[in-house]
């Protein structure tokens, strides 16, 4: 997915870096969601990124997290000078952009309206949801391949297939401080406890709902971007109606 406009050379590595920024609510990269509206790199190495969310009413806390994360990953790149990340067409964009320009946290954007400057609690809540959702997709794929509940519950990290969902599960586990070693259980509760074979079916019923919620929200975001700005983005999860 490329943004609506990309100007100047050197934007590819910036976009690569931005692909690591996930929408915390959807657990998908902001580049795949079409949220990067513009990305420009000057000959001197100044980077200018413009983000545009599906509606001006997207929640301010998630909007801030994406913009702040975008700024952080671009600043880490070598040979980058000034970095500007701006949120466009958002009802709290003024507050958020001013805070970003100052290098402030969330409390700097909304003084007196929050006690959590880095939004860690909110972020952790959605990382847990994302892990549950990803694991359900992985689990269903393995069951569809013919594995039994006992076999799935007995799997170790090292035995997981090398697919995107499995790699993302490990990233999410790392963010939560859960074990990611090769001998760690492959399917875990947000506490790190393994999912028991006897509980797998019940767990999957709930986990599947969490995943559906994330996917549907992603679908609505894509539909709105298309309706508002004519931006067409592939939806990997919706598939084709047969």
């Amino acid at each position, binding site marked *: 997915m490329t943004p609506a406009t990309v100007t100047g050379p050197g934007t590819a590595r910036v976009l690569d870096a931005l692909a690591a920024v996930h929408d915390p*609510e959807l657990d998908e990269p902001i580049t795949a969601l079409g949220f990067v509206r513009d990305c420009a790199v000057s000959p001197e190495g100044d980077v200018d990124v413009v983000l545009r969310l*599906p*509606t*001006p*009413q*997207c*929640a*301010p*806390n998630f909007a801030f997290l994406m913009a702040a994360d975008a700024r952080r990953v671009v600043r880490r790149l070598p040979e980058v000078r000034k970095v500007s990340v701006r949120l466009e*067409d958002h*009802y709290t964009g003024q507050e958020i952009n001013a805070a970003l320009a100052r290098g402030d946290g*969330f409390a700097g954007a*909304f003084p007196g*309206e*929050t*006690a*959590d400057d880095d*939004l860690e*609690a*909110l972020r952790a*809540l959605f990382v847990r*949801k994302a892990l549950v959702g990803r694991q359900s997709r992985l689990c269903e794929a393995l069951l569809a391949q013919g594995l039994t509940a006992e076999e799935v519950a007995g799997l170790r990290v090292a035995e997981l297939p090398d697919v995107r969902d499995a790699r993302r599960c490990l990233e999410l586990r790392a963010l939560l401080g859960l074990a990611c070693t090769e001998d760690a259980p492959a399917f875990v509760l947000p506490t790190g406890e393994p999912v028991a074979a006897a509980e797998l079916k019940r767990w999957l019923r*709930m986990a599947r*709902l*969490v995943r*559906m*919620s994330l*996917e*549907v*929200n992603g*679908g*609505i975001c894509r*539909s*709105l971007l*298309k*309706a*508002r700005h004519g931006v067409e983005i592939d939806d990997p999860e*919706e*598939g084709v*109606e*047969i």
Partner: protein
Amino acid sequence: MYEKDGEKYFVVDGHLHFWDASPENWVTGQEQYAKGWIECFHAYQGLGPAETHWPIEKFQKYTEDDFVRDVFEEGHVDFGIFQSTYLTEWYKDGFNTAAKNAALVEKYPDKLIVNGRFDPREGEAGLRQLEEDAKRYNLKGVKVYTAEWFHGSRGWTLRDPEAQFFLEKCQELGIKNIHAHKGPTIWPLDKDAFDVRDVDYAATNFPELNFIVEHVGLPRIEDFCFMGTQEPNVYAGLAVVIGGLMHARPRFFNKVMGELLFWIGEDKMLFASDYAIWEPKWQVEGFVNWTMPDREEYSDYPAVTTATKKKIMGLNAAKLYGIEVPAEYQLKEAGTPAAKEDAQLVESA
């Protein structure tokens, strides 16, 4: 009324608006919010079939003739419920206040009712206003929008101590139906504003009230389902599910309906068009004609029967609001909602 294959469906539209979002009604200095709000709604209309899209000018302010034609004449709606939404910080005369909606109710008293609203941040004055509104409009329900801005505050929750006084007042005034609508802001801003657990809290503390979660808690369907499956007085308002997904994302629509039928059940799901975001006609026809595809991924969802659709289209809402439904629309099978209630009465006697 909609008829299909000899079956007659009584249609209650649980979420109607008659709004004025035209530039003349924008509050000076707040234009960007007033404009952003209605443009956001307009984008949602884009998720329906192309032939039902309106130009933004008409969408900002439509006429009474548009309403009557789209809802009653072409939209199959037998009975409609206005959900008043004020947003007076952004719109001079409000977005669609009870007073504006009530003017239409007066003309069509057999087909429309209006729900009021409350905001616990208004304190004593708000309680008095609720009493007045209840009397003036004979309120049976209220819509609460927790993301509304008010004097520098960007939201509230049904768990707030002040909200309990308002729920008590609703109970006292015979306002049985509380429609809860989550939005993007809430105080403090670091919390998940879409979290529906405050509805859980209120539903447990006020078992005699019904809590209809608008848009099934989107974007937190999972939290809503986990809550709704435990609370007998929590209902799913289907606005946005049908309008936003049935046409634009049919596979997701199947899944959301399947999960709602599994966790919440067909007796607690209520049709709503969210007009004028979407016209009811294509939603009513599309839903009655919809079937769950016979595919593995949908195989453990409950069956969707004619009775399921009749309940969701109108019988469930009619029960909550005491709307009289002619016999020809009632379920033919045993175990209708009314029969269930009778059975409970017999058992408890």
